[in-house]
């Protein structure tokens, strides 16, 4: 019986249906609807003040919504906060660590607080230290860690009780490129094991590589919920193209009516910028240029698709 309940919960991930929340007279959430299915990484994207952190606080059982329905691992945080907590890991955007403890003591304390079995705890701490590459810091006090290392420690803390739902608020801020790649691998690994991962971030290129799905929020409401596969297909991005002979390139582009602009600082090697187009259109254009004998050496999307969608979205908002 217990086993079936658990597996049912694993199926459920996170669902949020028309959730509202205000602080005083300031509305923070005005009807957010989204889902974060298990086995996938869902990105939560939106400008500052869009309500991302408020939403994550509600999912993390710290805040009640004014109205609307929330399910985390199939449970209602208002009814069964303790149940949600035993299945949910949360990493806030700003957090403190107990500087005076050693890394092992820190994780050990939270293992106890999540009621891990004594015999299980030491092994779990070893496992996590390995995962976040802090094994050699196990007996060091937390205050010797760098910001990025503390960030990784906080991730390990959120994972200590093997949660089925993982909520991360800006986890990549303060991480160096290598740690970001590792974070990506950790999150992908957790999703592969069946966890529902919900990540908010501003680093959009990063999310593009991590996420299976993306939810856009703005002004406290959901403005779009897409799979990354669909987004990449439909997104229109600007491209940069460069050829050995820039005059020939310009002529070929003019012939096809493409309004190219000289790239930013206009250096010789910089090439030209093309207006936004879909992947299909871009592929057609590249084929045509090559077919016309233009010796193209670079043809690349500018920025990320996620970023251009995000910018369009926030543009509309103004």
């Amino acid at each position, binding site marked *: 019986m217990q086993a079936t309940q658990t597996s049912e919960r694993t199926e459920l991930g996170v669902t949020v249906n028309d959730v509202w929340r205000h602080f005083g007279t300031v509305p923070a959430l005005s009807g957010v609807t989204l889902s974060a299915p298990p086995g996938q990484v869902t990105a939560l994207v939106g400008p500052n003040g869009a309500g991302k952190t408020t939403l994550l606080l509600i999912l993390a*059982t710290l805040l009640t919504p004014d109205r609307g329905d929330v399910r985390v691992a199939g449970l209602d945080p208002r009814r069964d906060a303790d149940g949600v907590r035993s299945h949910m890991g949360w990493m806030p*955007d700003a957090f403190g660590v107990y500087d005076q*403890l050693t890394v092992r003591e820190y994780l050990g304390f939270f293992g106890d607080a999540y009621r891990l079995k004594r015999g299980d705890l030491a092994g779990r701490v070893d496992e996590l230290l390995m995962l976040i590459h802090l094994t050699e810091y196990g007996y060091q006090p937390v205050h010797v860690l760098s910001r990025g290392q503390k960030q990784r420690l906080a991730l390990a803390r959120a994972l200590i009780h093997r949660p089925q739902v993982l909520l991360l608020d800006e986890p990549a801020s303060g991480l160096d490129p290598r740690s970001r790649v590792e974070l990506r691998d950790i999150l992908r690994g957790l999703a592969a094991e069946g966890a529902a991962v919900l990540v908010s971030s501003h680093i959009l290129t990063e999310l593009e590589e991590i996420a299976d799905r993306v939810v856009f929020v703005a002004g406290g409401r959901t403005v779009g919920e897409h799979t990354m596969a669909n987004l990449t297909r439909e997104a229109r991005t600007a491209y940069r193209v460069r050829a050995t002979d820039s005059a020939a390139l310009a002529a070929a582009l003019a012939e096809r009516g493409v309004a190219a602009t000289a790239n930013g600082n206009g250096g010789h090697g910089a090439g030209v910028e093309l207006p936004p187009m879909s992947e299909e259109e871009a592929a057609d254009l590249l084929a045509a240029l090559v077919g016309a004998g233009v010796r193209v050496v670079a043809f690349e999307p500018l920025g990320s698709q996620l970023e251009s969608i995000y910018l369009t979205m926030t543009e509309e908002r103004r």
Partner: protein
Amino acid sequence: MTLGTPRGVGLVTRQEFRIRLRTGRWRWLLGAWVLVLAAFTMLLDLSLDTGYGIDRNTAQRGVPLFGILMFFVLFMVLVISPALTSQVINGDRERGTLATLQVTRLRPLEIALGKLVAGWGVGLVALALTLPFAGWAMASGGITIGRVAAVYGVVAVLIGVVCAVSQALSALLARSITSALLSYLVVAALTVGTLIAFALITPLVTSPRTTPNPDGSTYTYDEVRPDLTWWLIAPNPFVVLADSAPRVPPRVTAFGDEVYVQDYDPLSSIGRAVRDLRRPRDYVYTSENERELGPAVWPYGLAFNVLLGVGAVWVTALRLRTPARRIPRGVRIA
């Protein structure tokens, strides 16, 4: 939904203790604490000789020594106790370590009690360090171990009450500076405030009393009624301490026909003074009942303080309960 387990409380207490132990300069602070008490006890001992004429041959010399020492100890622990817990909740909020604790499976009451026990524990360590000086008083004669135990027990409870109230304030207020300040104001209200309130309100509570004059006419005047206002000073920690201390039999010295009843005990004299307030209005003094007192005051005072402490723990736990519906101004959840 259970309120909590001793295991959860113990976990939080150990964690708090570990952090406190590794942050403060405990050795220096406790060293200074012992030095201040040693200096006080020594000076008191000397001044009893010369200033008060209680020389080393006086029997029960330990009685005044112990009484005055315990007032000083109570004063000192009342000064340090608010500092022990008045920043534990909002300080954790400011450091961003509270929310990560709240999302674990620890219950609000476990967090509240665990932190309180840690702060209280530090206060008890400070109190325990004063025991050698109480021992000094015992060695000077007249003090039984039972009396020491009773008085220390009351001080220990009062430390817990002040810690609990300070902690509740730190849970209620966003800024740790404000909660620290208010904690000291609460201690001031209990110690000085109760005295002021009693002194100012008692003269206002009067009832007319009619007494016969020698010529047969009667004379009516307004009589103050401390038996109706005594409860105003009952919560005072010094009153609780003094009145709850087991009485020491007064020293009786006879010079021929004259019998002197001397009482050097500051605890008993305050205790007697407050019990006098409770004597019924129509009490008539006779030579037999001269030493009979009104009923005890301390059970009320102690009960008030304990209820205050329990209420404070309850308030703290309520404020730690999540998911939170209302967020007080200026409080960041995480």
